[in-house]
């Protein structure tokens, strides 16, 4: 389903924070803050996760020179059970809050909801975004952190990062959300939780295709089309899918993936980064800054999410995936 925003809500401020290992990220210089302690000086990983969300939101509010009372809505999600880090951060923020779960696609689904609320006139200012904390997520979805299991080359590394954006009424000096596509849930029957890129690529394909068709656009209409966390292997699969459908190699160069690029060529991170914070931190730092500087005029951000749980995977269910996209422009 493609939504066209007549009022063109703008992203008035952005904030991205990351953990210690994320210093190795190629996007490191774009992050607002990087902390030395993975737990953000809290007692547990989950508390640290919530504090990280709070810090990112504080940065957003400071940049816009506003206080929490000025914000109408807080839309956030993460990957921990029942999204407690987002809930606990919302407790401190005391802003009307809706928790959202689209797995790693929450970075974009939250901005879509914020833009709709803005277009409706219900919201003057809304903070939207997503986060993930490596230890808190890994322990839930996979094995204990210190367990010495071997991961295949297709596995990805959950980032410790949070990215949030302040969505408000149209302002020509800031990047604007002109259209969005809410993705369907696509399931090709993949069951390997160590190969999420392969499971998610068809969802990204479906959403990008739907967006371009409905908007009557081509790849060249964009300066960049960036998926969320397909990783190196998933991105290759997505490119192969587009190539099979007649997209030329030079057009495919416009297609990039935040997860595949996040840690550069470091082999220790296998197929690259993943997690709700991966796309959020890249979109709401690097991408927004590139738009503001005028280097990009029109981008399509397509965040991908694998909608599995450890339980569903153990019960032999395949991995349903989704992808949500927003089209941002800079005048």
């Amino acid at each position, binding site marked *: 389903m493609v939504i066209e925003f007549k009022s063109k809500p703008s992203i008035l401020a952005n904030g991205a924070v990351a953990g210690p290992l994320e210093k190795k990220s190629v996007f490191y210089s774009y992050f607002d803050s990087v902390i030395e302690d993975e737990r953000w000086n809290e*007692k*547990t*990983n*989950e508390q640290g996760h919530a504090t990280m969300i709070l810090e990112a939101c504080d940065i957003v509010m400071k940049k816009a020179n506003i206080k929490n009372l000025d914000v109408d809505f807080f839309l956030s999600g993460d990957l921990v059970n029942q999204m407690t880090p987002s809930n606990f951060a919302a407790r401190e923020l005391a802003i009307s809050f809706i928790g959202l779960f689209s797995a790693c696609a929450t970075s974009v689904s939250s901005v879509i909801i914020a833009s709709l609320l803005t277009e409706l006139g219900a919201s003057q200012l809304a903070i939207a975004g997503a986060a993930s904390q490596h230890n808190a997520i890994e*322990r839930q979805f996979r*094995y*204990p*952190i*210190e*367990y*010495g*299991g*071997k*991961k*295949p*080359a*297709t596995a990805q590394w959950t980032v410790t990062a949070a990215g949030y954006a302040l969505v408000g009424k149209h302002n020509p000096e800031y990047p604007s959300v002109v259209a969005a596509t809410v993705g369907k849930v696509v399931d*090709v*029957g*993949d069951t390997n939780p160590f*190969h999420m890129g*392969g499971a998610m*690529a*068809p969802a990204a394909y479906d959403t990008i295709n739907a967006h371009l068709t409905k908007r009557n656009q081509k790849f060249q209409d964009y300066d960049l089309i960036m998926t969320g966390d397909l990783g190196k*292997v998933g991105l*290759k*699969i997505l490119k*192969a*899918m587009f190539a*099979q459908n007649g997209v030329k190699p030079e057009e495919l160069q416009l297609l990039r993936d935040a997860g595949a690029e996040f840690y550069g060529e470091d082999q220790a991170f296998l197929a690259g980064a993943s997690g709700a914070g991966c796309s959020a931190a890249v979109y709401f730092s690097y991408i927004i800054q590139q738009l503001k500087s005028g280097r990009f005029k029109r981008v399509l951000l397509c965040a991908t999410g694998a909608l599995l749980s450890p339980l569903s995977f153990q019960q032999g269910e395949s991995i349903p995936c989704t992808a949500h996209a927003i089209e941002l422009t800079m005048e």
Partner: protein
Amino acid sequence: MEQEQYKNLEQQVTPPTPYFMNALKAFLVGGIICTIGHAITYFYIIFFDFTEKTVGNPTVSTMIFLSMLLTGFGLYKKLGQYAGAGSAVPVTGFGNAVISAAIEHRTEGVVLGVGGNIFKLAGSVILFGVASAFFVALIKLILVSIGVVQW
């Protein structure tokens, strides 16, 4: 695109699992771990009052202690990523599975956290280890009773 077509495409693009290299690495690292274990066995026999029959327990405890140190310092997971089954199958891998779960759940308290989750990964090893030991002993008992082999 049909599901089958997609599966083919996915398989073409996905790098193949290097089974031979994985097996080779596992063989080397697993072998080294067992050699260290054997050296410890000799150490206890030569320097202490242990026999070949009684040396098993102190050797296993020492190996698990070493595994605990490596796990605590975050090194065993790195070894595991390189060696795969080579570091998972020996008793040090069992130790790593127990200790990593204990460290992980420390934040949920000593009883419900550590106590309730310490065998989260190793529990199935214990269950199937004990069960298969029982059946192997049963087979041997039958073979001894009918005179095929001796104890």
